[in-house]
């Protein structure tokens, strides 16, 4: 019963803010929105504690959703250990971002609408993670897609933003088609959508079973869309058009990780399909590297973080692909902390800079934004994998897991994390060090954000700093909390790597990171090198800053042919056939009516005459026939 309350709180928040909208007192809007998420967080913590103290799972069926013959879908909720972790992340990080939004969006004229959408998003995300069957998950999956669309296009007066929203929505539809086909195949194979029933039946199938392989591949197509993997990743960087809290909540911490959650949730299936798993890992690896290299040459503060998100999602899929499911969730959690933090910091910077997002016009912000600077630094250290910060543990675990899977993958992935550190420190030095490069007006008004924004930053900074301790590697002789906690639902591969290897890994990563930090500082701060303007870029830099021209490639491959086809359709079918038919009918009636209207002479005499003629005609008709 208590499970039902978790999604209900944000739903009520949405209804209150959505209905009353601007007639709500402005101060109250933020409270309603934040507290509704906080209430869900409270329940999630309660359930988490129950699970810690031995409970296995909670289940609650609200009602029969659909029933047709043998087809039956329940509107049921389930909280097992995996869900509990997701619940804590969604509601916990979600709450902090809601509080932050109170400060960030307060001056916006549509502030209540924004908060309502955010609550609606949390509702759907909770539906996604709480559902006890694939259909519930799909409902939440589509719901978060809708909210993502609404929030990317939140400032709908700007056409570019609307296009970004459309792009996100359409790209996701492509993925969803795969997901949906996967669901159909699941039903056809197992006759059920319930997670437990499906997983129970699947375990009787042999490994390498072709049906299971097809199902997992199709499901992963859905994950490609939602979690922005090659080839469907291009919507995520564009999604940065939305307000920054949206980027933090939806496009970094929660929604985009839904794909990872889904793969981990179906880990029984993936474990049976080595080919699919390998495919997941390869796509994840390619995305991780591809996006990281693009991140090297982006000059928009949010775009760098966006590509970094795409790349980090790739890491999670590599972990899931090599069978280390708890590691994928581990990285999902720590990533939610530090990426939400980084996005919120960038929001704070943008707020202070009056909407400026280009790092070439920033610099030297350390002096003016001390709290933002410090928290951003912690986030940067965490994502780069500097020891003791959260990202270090999760990323090292992924590397270690990959090492025991394939040496080539490990090397590439390690190279990817080197790039990650480079672009993150490039961003950090360019934003916070050196001379201020903005306009005079911006300089005069530089200010630290209000408390309502900085406090969530500080909380997230603390989480980014210590969040890694939920999964200590073996060499520290402490129990790996997360692995043990998740073992009943998503254990996957054990995390045993040789201790020597762990030491070597940690030692080299420290050395490499030190070199990166030193050299990037040398390059961007001491020498004061600035990224060249768009026109000056050439060679590889140009390819990278233009994102490998993937958008252009897609435009040429898909949009152009579609344009041509629809142009032909317009000219020949629409104008040639449909318009002519419809217009022809209209013109015929018009001509006939024009002729007939002269019957109405206005003279009573002629009407009488026609009437008598008519009567006569009727009489003759009656007599003759």
């Amino acid at each position, binding site marked *: 019963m208590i499970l039902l309350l978790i999604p209900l709180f944000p739903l009520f928040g949405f209804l209150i803010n959505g209905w009353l909208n601007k007639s709500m007192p402005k101060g109250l809007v933020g409270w309603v929105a934040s507290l509704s998420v906080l209430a869900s967080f409270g329940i999630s913590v309660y359930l988490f504690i129950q699970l810690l103290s031995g409970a296995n799972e909670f289940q609650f069926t609200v009602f029969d959703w659909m029933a047709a013959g043998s087809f039956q879908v329940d509107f049921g909720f389930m909280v097992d250990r995996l869900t509990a972790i997701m619940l804590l992340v969604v509601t916990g990080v979600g709450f902090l971002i809601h509080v932050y939004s109170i400060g960030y969006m307060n001056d916006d004229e549509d502030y209540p609408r924004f908060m309502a959408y955010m609550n609606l998003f949390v509702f759907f995300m909770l539906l996604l993670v709480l559902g006890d069957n694939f259909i519930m998950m799909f409902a939440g999956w589509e719901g978060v897609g809708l909210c993502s669309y609404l929030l990317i296009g939140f400032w709908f007066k700007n056409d570019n933003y609307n296009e970004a929203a459309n792009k996100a929505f359409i790209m996701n539809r492509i993925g969803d088609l795969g997901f949906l086909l996967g669901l159909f195949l699941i039903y056809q194979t197992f006759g059920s959508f319930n997670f437990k029933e499906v997983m129970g039946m699947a375990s009787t199938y042999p490994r390498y079973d072709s049906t299971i392989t097809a199902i997992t591949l199709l499901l992963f197509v859905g994950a490609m869309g939602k979690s922005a993997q090659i080839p469907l990743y291009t919507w995520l960087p564009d999604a940065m058009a939305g307000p920054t809290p949206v980027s933090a909540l939806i496009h970094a911490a929660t929604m985009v990780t839904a794909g990872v959650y889904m793969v981990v949730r179906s880990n029984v299936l993936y474990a049976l399909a080595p080919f699919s798993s390998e495919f997941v890992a390869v796509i994840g690896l390619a995305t991780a590297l591809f996006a990281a290299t693009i991140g090297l040459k982006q000059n928009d503060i949010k775009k760098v973080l966006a590509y970094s998100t795409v790349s980090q999602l790739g890491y999670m899929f590599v972990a899931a692909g090599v069978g280390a499911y708890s590691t994928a969730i581990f990285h999902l959690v720590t990533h939610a902390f530090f990426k939400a933090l980084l996005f919120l910091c960038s929001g704070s910077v943008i707020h202070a800079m009056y909407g400026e997002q280009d790092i070439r016009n920033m610099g030297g912000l350390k002096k003016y934004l001390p709290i933002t600077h410090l928290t951003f630094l912690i986030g940067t250290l965490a994502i780069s994998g500097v020891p003791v910060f959260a990202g270090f543990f999760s990323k090292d675990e992924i590397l270690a897991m990959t090492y025991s899977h394939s040496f080539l993958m490990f090397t590439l992935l390690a190279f990817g994390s080197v790039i990650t550190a480079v672009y993150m420190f490039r961003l950090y030095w360019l934003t916070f060090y050196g001379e201020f490069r903005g306009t005079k007006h911006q300089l005069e008004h530089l200010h630290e954000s209000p408390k309502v924004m900085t406090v969530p930053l500080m909380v997230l900074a603390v989480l980014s700093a210590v969040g890694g301790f939920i999964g200590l590697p073996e060499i520290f002789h402490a129990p790996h909390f997360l692995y043990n906690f998740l073992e009943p639902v998503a254990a996957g591969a054990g995390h045993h790597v040789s201790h020597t290897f762990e030491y070597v890994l940690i030692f080299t990563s420290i050395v490499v990171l030190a070199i990166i930090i030193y050299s990037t500082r040398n390059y961007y701060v001491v020498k004061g090198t600035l990224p060249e303007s768009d026109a000056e870029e050439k060679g590889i830099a140009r390819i990278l800053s233009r994102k490998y021209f993937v958008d252009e490639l897609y435009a040429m491959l898909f949009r152009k042919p579609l344009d041509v086809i629809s142009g032909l359709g317009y000219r020949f079918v629409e104008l040639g056939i449909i318009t002519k038919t419809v217009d022809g009918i209209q013109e015929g009636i018009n001509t006939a009516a024009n002729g007939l209207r002269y019957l*109405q002479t206005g003279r009573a005499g002629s009407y*009488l005459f026609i009437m008598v003629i008519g009567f006569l005609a009727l009489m003759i008709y009656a007599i003759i026939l």
Partner: protein
Amino acid sequence: MNILQTIPLNHYIMLSALLFSIGAMGVLLRRNAIILLMCVELMLNAVNLLFAAFSVHHADGGGQVMVIFIMTVAAAEVAVGLAIIVMMFRKAGTTDINLFDTLKW
């Protein structure tokens, strides 16, 4: 034996048809609204006569009931019609129906 029944039914029918035709031709050919009204009255009464004749012929009172109804309706119709004609005359100084033709396409 009723006196009415001494006259054959055919004669009534002939007379009714004649009266009705005179009325109908008047409606079609005359243009004065008052004459028109009178012609309509003639047609109605032709029908009344027929009703009465058949009522007697079949020894059925229903036909005579209809006659009373028709007379009532005719009275109401004439009252409204005459009122309209009075207004027409006040407006235009004539009762020629063919001059009132503004309600057209």
